[in-house]
Every structure is written in C-alpha cells, then in structure tokens.
C-alpha cells in the first residue's frame, strides 16, 4: 500500500474538559476585541434596561398602593426616588398623582423595552461578527494545511470544527448574554428587597440553594437519559437512511422483515428513554412554579407574624420599620426575578460544558501547524518554462519505516509525453504528488529546468503545472466558473474555446443553461466521462507548461472513451506531459514509457525499445494485445 496511514491522535489530544478555562476565554477575546465598543454599549444598556424593569413593580407597589392609596411616606422607603418623581410630575402637569404614576409607568416600560432591545441587538452583533472572523481564520488555516495533513485526518472530523464547534460557541456567548440579562435584575431587586426587610429577604433566599440543589439533581439524573434519547434518535435516523439508500439490496435479499424488526427495537428503546425523560422533566418543571407560590405563602406568613408581634411603629400598619403594605406587595412582585436566574443557570450549564469543549477543539485546530517548507528566497521562474524535468536519486516514504520511492532517477525532456505504467502500489501516484509539491521532498532530487523544486515557492510551481487527478473536484458554481477558476484573464469565449478543443462543448451546450449551468459536488449532475472532459477544459484554459495526469480507472462507455482520448491528444500537444496511464490508447500515444515497480524505475524507453527488451512491459503488452484495454493498476 502506497497510501499514508490515517492517524486519529491529532483529534484526541488534550481536551481538558474543564468547565471554565480562563486562558482559553482570554484567547477567545482576541476575536472579540474589534467589537469591544459595541460590546461596551451593550453592557451599559443591560444595566439601564434592568434597572427600569425593576422600577416597574416599584411603581405599582410602593408608589401607587403604598403612597397614593395608603398614604405611606417615609424617607427610608427604598423607592429610588419614584414617589418624589411622581409627585413632581403631578404638580407640574397639574394632574392627579395616579395619572402621573401611570404616565411614569408607561415611560419606564418603553424605556426598558427600547434599552433591552438595543442591548440584545448590539450584543448579538458583536458576538456574530467576532465568531464570523474566528470561523474565517479557522477556514483559512485549514485551507492552507498541506496535502500530507489531509492524508492523515478524516475530513468529516476536521469539518465539524468549522461548523458544529463554532455553532456551540454561539450558544456559549448567547447563553452568557442570557445569564447576564437574568442576573443584573436579580441583584438590583435583591438590593431593594434588602433595603426593605432583611430577615424576609434572607428567608426567601433560602429557597435558592434548594432550587439549585433540585436543579442540579435533576440535571445529573437526566444527563444520561438525554444522551440516550439523542443516541437512539440518531440511530433511528441512521438506520432508516441506510435502509432507504440500500433499499434495492434489501428487497433483493428479502430482508424487509428482519430490518423492520431491528428498526422496531431501536424505536422501542427510544420510546423508553423518552418516556423516562418526560417523567423527570414534568416532575421538575412543575416544581419551579410551585416554589414561587410557596414563596408567596411565606411572605404572607411573615407579614402576619410581623403584625402579631409588631410594636407600634412608624407606619400605619403597626409593623416594624420598613415592611409596609407596599413593601409586602413589592416582595410578591419580585419573586420571579429572584428565582428565575437559578432556573436559567441550570438550563445553561450543559451548554457551557459543551461549548467549552468546542472552544478547546477550535483552538486545537488553529494550532495544527503542519506546513510545506517554503524557500526563504524563492527562485523567480521565467514567464515561460521550457519544461525539462529531472528526477535525481529521489527516495521518499510517507512514514519513516516505509519507503515508497527508492532511488528514482530519470529525465523528461521539454515537450515530451511520458506514460508511466506499473502495478497498484508501485509508487506512480506518489511520484506525481511529489512533482506537484504536495509533500516536502529531499533537497536535490527533483529539478525543473535545472532549478531544485525546493527553491521554488509551491504556489508558483503549481501555477505552472496542470494537474488532473483521478477524483475530479467540482467547485460549486457554473460550468464557466469551473473552467476559469476565478482567473479574470480567462473570458467566456476562451473557456468555450477550451471546452470545444477537449470535446466538452457538446454536452455543455446540451445542458439547460449551457455554460451558466450551476454544478454542485453533491448534485452529481455530470457523468464520469463528462467530469473528465471538464477537467481537461479547465487545465487547457489555464495553459500550464507541464501537464500531470492520473488517468481515471473506471470504464466508460466507448463513445465517451473516444472523446476523452482525442481530447487528451490535443491537451498534451507541445506540452511536457506526465501521464499515469491505464489505457492502451494513452500509452500508444506517449513518446516514452516508464515502467515502475516497487518504487523503482524498471524499464524506460520508447514502446519499440521496451518490446525488444522483452521485459515487464512486453508481458503487459502481450496481455493488452489479447485484451482490449490494459489496466495495470
């Protein structure tokens, strides 16, 4: 096997799993920095909005019921100046204090809504922008990792870092925003409550550890259940998806009943976990509302106790200082603000956990630093290369212990067409990957017009070599986009000319939108042969000095096959070409043939020379003489 081995260690390295990792959060701040002013504005606004929000119940209880209706006054009532403001308003506008209070209430409500809205919008905009930049940087980083990196990793796992993990960070930052939105009013309300009545506030605060404990207990009891629900649900979907994708095989094998049984079992498992989860959630959900009602009872019970034991005090209720009727009502209105944050905190912990792990994974990906060695002072290539290639004592292995190429030396002359043949795993593909500089190569082993490849910047080199790989990659975009590849010098007419030359024009013009037809990698709206022709058009349009081609092995119907061979002939004309050949036709057209075996050059020469040699090529040729196609791989 000449393929490099897959390596999972990159993904598993050092996920600490810490709940709060401050050095990591600090690193995250780097991306948030450009938006810090927006963020600061947002923070100020949450304070404004929360304060206004807390004042609303103050108007109802302390101003209207306490002051206006009950006539309670006193400098020690923590009304934050609302009573004074109402009276001022009433005097200056000459209206009843009750109307003034209503007006004030309206203004506060509008103010709180507006400030809250701007707070949320600015917060989310700074978060979105910061994470967009982070995602962009991550993508840039991944896009520029060398091919050797992608040999060893599973693309799917790299991909989730850009998608799911960044998504989780959104959740994290949004969650933190929600918590701030809950806890700021909590503390403002708490301050007012303490100012009114310390013992009652403390009694009510006792509920928090209880709720926290119950929430914690609920979360830990259900965490495993939630995971099981997710797992069974995804295996349900996976099972169905696979069953549908392979339905023909299922039906041809008579496996319908058996498969239904498997599905039913998973479905039953899932139902079981769902039901258990539902049981827990309903028990827990109603508990929170009940606590609010119990707190109501406690406030009343406390009030009753105060009246019973109260000494004649300063206010007309006969209560001790501070706890007036307005105060009692204010307490009943504040219960939600007091209890809600702890519930939200419980909801957010899981998200925080997950997001922290995601954050670590993102930074881990940003720290993958594998790169191609670029020269310090790259040689500037002339505008047009001649195209002489020399391999000089080239040895190479993907791992230290497996040598793929062993002392390979040969020349390709400018304008020559060289076909490489040899069995699977002989190192043909590795040879052209090195020529395209996908890997670091030993110094002094490959020369282009006499220049060591290591002295040329890889991007400069690649723009001179047109590579057509077996797995042709379609970029999403139109056919024209796929030919021109963003090169502004390639006009539509030039693209069409290239397509005509390589016999791709016919099928393209038969597509509904011609060259403007949108292609997609997944849509697979092109056949194998058409993809191959399109790849040729792309290379021809770029007009590189050197062509490197790894011929596709799949057999294609004869008509298309002929078009491909014809296109290949035009493509290689007057161009140094290195072709890994699987087809008789391609080999026949080549100037020289290189036979490769076990990483070594076995035979090299024109067809006639090799036949006369009566070696490996002659054997292959006999097979091909008997067979219509030669496929030595």
């Amino acid at each position, binding site marked *: 096997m000449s393929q490099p081995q897959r390596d999972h260690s990159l993904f598993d390295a050092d996920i600490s799993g810490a709940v709060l990792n401050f050095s990591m959060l600090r690193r995250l701040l780097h991306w948030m920095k450009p938006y810090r002013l927006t963020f600061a504005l947002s923070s100020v606004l949450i304070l404004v909005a929360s304060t206004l929000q807390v004042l609303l119940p103050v108007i*109802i209880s302390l101003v209207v019921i306490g002051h*206006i209706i*009950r006539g309670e006054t006193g400098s020690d009532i923590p009304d934050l100046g609302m009573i004074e403001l109402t009276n001022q308003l009433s005097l200056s506008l000459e209206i009843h204090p009750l109307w003034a*209070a*209503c007006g004030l209430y309206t203004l506060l409500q509008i103010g709180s809504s507006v400030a*809250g809205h701007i707070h*949320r*919008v600015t917060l*989310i905009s700074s978060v979105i*922008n910061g994470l*967009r930049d982070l995602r962009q940087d991550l*993508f840039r980083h991944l896009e520029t990792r060398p091919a050797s990196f992608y040999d060893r990793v599973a*693309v*799917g796992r*790299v*991909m989730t870092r*850009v*998608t799911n993990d960044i998504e989780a960070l959104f959740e994290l930052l949004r969650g933190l925003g929600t918590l701030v939105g809950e806890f700021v009013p909590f503390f403002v309300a708490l301050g007012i409550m303490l100012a009114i009545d310390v013992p009652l506030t403390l009694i009510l605060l006792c509920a928090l550890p209880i709720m926290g404990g119950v929430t914690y207990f609920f979360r830990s009891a259900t965490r495993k259940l939630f995971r099981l629900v997710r797992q069974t649900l995804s295996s349900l979907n996976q099972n*169905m*998806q*696979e*069953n*549908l994708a*392979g*339905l*023909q*095989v299922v*039906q*041809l*094998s008579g496996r319908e009943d058996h498969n239904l049984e498997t*599905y039913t079992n998973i*479905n*039953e498992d899932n139902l079981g976990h*769902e039901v258990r989860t*539902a*049981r827990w959630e309903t028990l827990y*959900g109603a508990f929170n509302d009940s606590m609010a*009602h119990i707190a*109501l009872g406690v406030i*009343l019970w406390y009030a009753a106790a105060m*009246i*019973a034991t109260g000494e004649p005090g300063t206010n007309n*209720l006969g209560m001790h200082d501070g706890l007036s009727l307005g105060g*009692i*009502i204010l307490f009943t209105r504040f219960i939600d603000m007091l209890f809600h944050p702890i519930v939200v905190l419980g909801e957010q912990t899981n998200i925080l956990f997950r997001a922290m792990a995601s954050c670590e994974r993102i930074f881990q990906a940003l720290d993958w630093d594998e790169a191609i060695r670029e020269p310090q002072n790259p040689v500037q290539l002339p505008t047009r290369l001649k195209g002489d290639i020399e391999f000089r004592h080239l040895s190479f292995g993907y791992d230290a212990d497996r040598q793929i190429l062993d002392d390979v030396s040969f020349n390709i002359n400018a304008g020559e067409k060289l076909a490489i043949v040899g069995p699977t795993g002989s190192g043909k593909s590795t040879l052209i990957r090195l020529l395209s500089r*996908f890997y670091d190569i030993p110094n002094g082993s490959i020369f282009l017009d006499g220049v060591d490849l290591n002295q040329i910047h890889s991007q400069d080199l690649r723009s001179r070599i047109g*590579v057509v790989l077996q797995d042709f990659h379609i*970029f*999403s975009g139109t056919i024209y986009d796929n030919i021109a*590849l963003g090169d502004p010098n390639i006009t539509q007419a030039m693209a069409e000319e290239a397509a005509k030359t390589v*016999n791709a024009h016919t099928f393209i013009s038969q597509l509904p939108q011609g060259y403007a037809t949108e292609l997609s*990698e997944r849509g697979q709206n092109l056949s194998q042969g058409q993809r191959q022709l399109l790849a040729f058009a792309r290379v021809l349009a770029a007009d590189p000095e050197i062509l490197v081609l790894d011929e596709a*092995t799949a*057999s294609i119907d*004869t008509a298309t096959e*002929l*078009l491909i061979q*014809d296109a290949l002939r035009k493509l290689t004309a007057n161009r140094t070409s290195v072709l890994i050949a699987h087809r008789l036709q391609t080999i026949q057209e080549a100037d020289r043939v290189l036979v490769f075996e076990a990483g070594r050059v076995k035979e090299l020469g024109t067809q006639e020379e090799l036949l006369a040699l009566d070696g490996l090529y002659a054997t292959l040729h006999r097979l091909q003489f008997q*067979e219509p*196609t030669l496929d030595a791989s």
Partner: protein
Amino acid sequence: MWRSLKRLLPFIKPYKARLGLGVVAFGVARLFEGLVPLLLALAIDRIIAGNSNLMAPVLGIFAVVMGRYAAVTTARYQVRRSGLSVAFDLRQSLYQNLQQQGSQFFSTHSIGDMMTRAVADIGLVQRFISMGSILLVILVYATIVGFGFMLYLNPTLTLLLLPPMPFIFYYARWSSREMGIASKDVQDRLSDLSDHVQENLSGIRTIQAMVQEENEIKRFGRTNQRYANAFYRQAQINSLMTAWMPSLAAICSITILGYGGFQVLEGQMTVGALVAFFFYVNMVVQPFRVAGFMVNLFQRAAVASDRLFEVVSLEPEVADNPVAGTPALIKGQIEFRDLSFAYDAVRDKALNEINLSIKSGESITIMGPVGAGKTTLLKLLVRLIEPTPGSVLIDGRPVTDYPLAQLRSQIAMVPQDPFLFGDALRNNLTYDTPDRGLEPIWDAATAADLRTTIEGFPEQMQTVVGERGVTLSGGQKQRATLARGLVRQAPVLVLDDCFSSVDTETEEHILSELKRLRRGQTTLLVSHRVSTARHSDRIVMLEAGRILEVGTHEELLKLGGAYAELERIQREGADASDYEPAGAFT
C-alpha cells in the same frame, strides 16, 4: 387545516384515555392556580384591616400549591406520553410503507425528502399533540378561569382589559411566523456553510494544485457573511418580540393602575382585589400570546400530517400475489415475450417488444450504450419493477405468479451501484441470510478476488466498512457486492455492470471463477467490454430498447454489425472521428 389534522385521528385514538386524563388534570391545575391570587387578595385585605390572622389564606396557598403540583405533573406527563406514542406508531408505519416502495417511487422522491418526513414532520406532529393540546387547554382554561375570577372581582375593569388581547394574539402570530422564516433561513445558510467546508476539504488537493486557496477563502468569506446576516436577522426578530410582548401586556397593567387605582381610592374596590388583578392579567395574557404561536404550530403540523400520509397511505409498488402451484425450485429457463415497458407515459419506451429465450444454464452478456434498457430488462426479471403479466416468464410461468420472496431468493441480482451497509464485511456479504457459516462466505470472497484484501484488514471479516470504518475503493466495493451475490448460489445470477471499476486482470480472474462456479446455471450480465462478453454463450446487443443483434462472439463478429464495430474500436483504439456522435464538434 382541520381536515389534514383529522387524518391523525386513527393514530391518536389508541391513546384517547391518556390524552383525556391529561386534559382534565390541566383543568384542575388551572383552577388551583386561579385560587392563589384570590387567597392573596384575602390576606392583603386582612392586613389592611389590621387582622393578624392570616392562617387560612397562607395554609390555603400551601394546600393549593400541592394540589396544583400533582395535577400539573400528571397532566403534562400524560399529554407528552401520548405524543411520544403517536410518534412511535407513525415511525413504524412510515418505515414499513417505505420498505415496500420501489424505483418508481424513489425516482420522484429523494431519500433526503423521506428523511425530512421521518424526522421533521413526525417531530412536528408529536409537538402538535404534546404541546398543542397543552396550549389549547391553557388557552381555554386560563382565559375562562382568569376572566371568571376577574369578573367576580370587578366586571368593569375586566371588560376594560379586553381590547389589547387581539393585538397580543396577532403580534405573537406574526412574530412566530417571521421567526419560522428567519430560522429556516439560518438553517439553510448553515447547511450552505457546511457544504462549502465539506466540498473544500474533500477537494483540497485540486484546490491547492490549481492555486485556488485565496479564491476559495474569499468565497467562503461570502458564505460566512451570509450566514452571519441570517443569524443576525433572526436574533433581531427574536429581540423585537421580547421587547414588544411585555409592552403590550403593560397596557393592561396601566389600565389596572389607572382605573383600578381610582376605584380603590373611591372605596369601590379593595387593595387586595387590585393586587389580584395583576396576577390574573398575566394568567390571561399568556394564553393569547401562546395562541399566536399555536396557530402556526397547527398550520405546520397540518402540512406535516399531509406529507406523512402521502407516504403512509401508499400501496406497495410491487404487490405479492402468488398463484398456487408454482414450483418451489427455479430451474433457470427465462423468456421475454413481446416485452415492452415505459417508466411513464411521457417518456419513450425503455423496452420495445423484446423477444428472447434463455436456456437454463446459459450465460448471456447484454451490451449496449447508456439508456439502451439493459438495467430495465434485469429489473423486470426480479420484479423490482412490475412487468405486464405474461411478458416475462421463468420456467414457463409468468414471474408475477411466483411469491416475491422466492423469486428474489432464487434469482440473485447484483445491482450496478455497489452499495454496502455501514456494518461488518461479514454481515454485508451474507446480507440475505445473516446466520450463514463463514466457509461459503470466504469461498464467495475468494471467487470475487477479495480474499487478499480482506486478509489485509486487521479484523478480517469483522471489519466495519463505510464512514465509521474502512473506506473501500470503488473496485473493492464492486467485488464485495459481487461476493454478496455469489454467496447465494442461486439458480439464476444477474450481474448489472459489476466490473466497471475492476481492472482487466482481476476481471479476467473473476470471470474464470464465475465460469467454474456457475457451470450449468443461468447467468446474465451487463458489460461495456468485449473482453467480458467473449466469455458468455451468447451476446445480446440492445439499442434504444430494442434487440439489435443476438449470437455468439464469433457469430456477431462475422455479422459485421454493431458488436463487430465495438470490438474493432476496443481492440485498436480509434480516432474520435471514427465514432462521431451527432454534433460532437460544433
């Protein structure tokens, strides 16, 4: 909408007792909730009167809390449980029905579409039953109970609170619809984004070879920005809703403050009642708000239900209706008699009056250009698509007479697309009979030239293939599916272009194995290569649904027709000008 939702009734019916219990329990819970502000009002008025005996209201609240807890828990659980059960049943029906569909159905319905129905639509119906009934109940009970208690306390004030309610309802409805659109957009942009990343990383070699990194990064920047925009828009709508809802509700609070305040000052209302009103108004506003969401949920559930029943009510594409007296063992004599077939009325006939008789034990290669009808012919034989009765016969009896299970177990077909399940190789190779012994599986693998490949894997036959395991090459996959067909040792073997990704040497080896294994048994195969066709007893050239030539390799060469031309091209190679499809060079 209601008609669509009504279709769900047969699925809901088995759980009607459960659902009923839930609904009643909700009513009880709401009633308890309604009592709390009343008890609070009582307590406040006693405090004002200087009465320190608050025992009754306080104990009352505690008792109500406990009763409510029991009722709410029961109600929510029963209702949710019903939704889960309905979802369970729907999934089962969907799965069962889809399994009986064939190529006709899947030519117009994608797997992705079916998955959306199985996941999103069933999810919606489940939420409709669980949440929908909760919401409906909250709406009815809370408005009745809330308004009831308020009317009891102060009828005029209650009526004054009515005007904002429709606005709350419509605003909630509007914003939930907007939210739906916005979050769909976010989902779409997100899937664009993952497509983009996936596409880039899997084509990274080409991108780097073509020096496209900067272009692609720039292009990604646009996708990234579009996602950010969609996300921002959704957040904006969400935030607007969070801002507007309390503002609309505040109109009620101000009415209570203003009107109620004066009433208290004039002694026509107690302070306790005023406080209670603030609690009740919440009880009433909430349902109107929820109702706005509910309308949308109902509409979406109705659409989901229609989409589900479109599949659940399907008839099997190929029905099993065996005729008594068909022989238990198939010998392998096949006849196509005046066989014509069209996939639908619009398109041309895929097959046109095919007449062909294949002797038991014969090997046949079918050749022809893309779209000649090769695969269609094979599919009709195993009834993956249904032929007109009497046009396809096996051992002299129409294929439609045989039980499907028998037909497909004795005619082993290997389809063109080499599909493997994400499972152990062993389970893939012996997919039809999971408990088959290892020995025949290894034999089949050997014949398909897969032995050394499997032996190269550390876990051999237990190696898991696919995304979660080892990725096989196209050729390896084809050989695996071939082994899956060979292991069945069926009287008839049908291979639909199974060597396209296998190199010629290997193919040669497999063909000679086939010859040995299939001696005296019928074998049909489709191929593009003359080298493959030469080995069979007879060759059938198809073109545009008609049989062009039939005969042995030598006979057809002598005939000098399409087959001979193909042979020449494949032997010598040719200039494109030799074989010029209309308009190849324009």
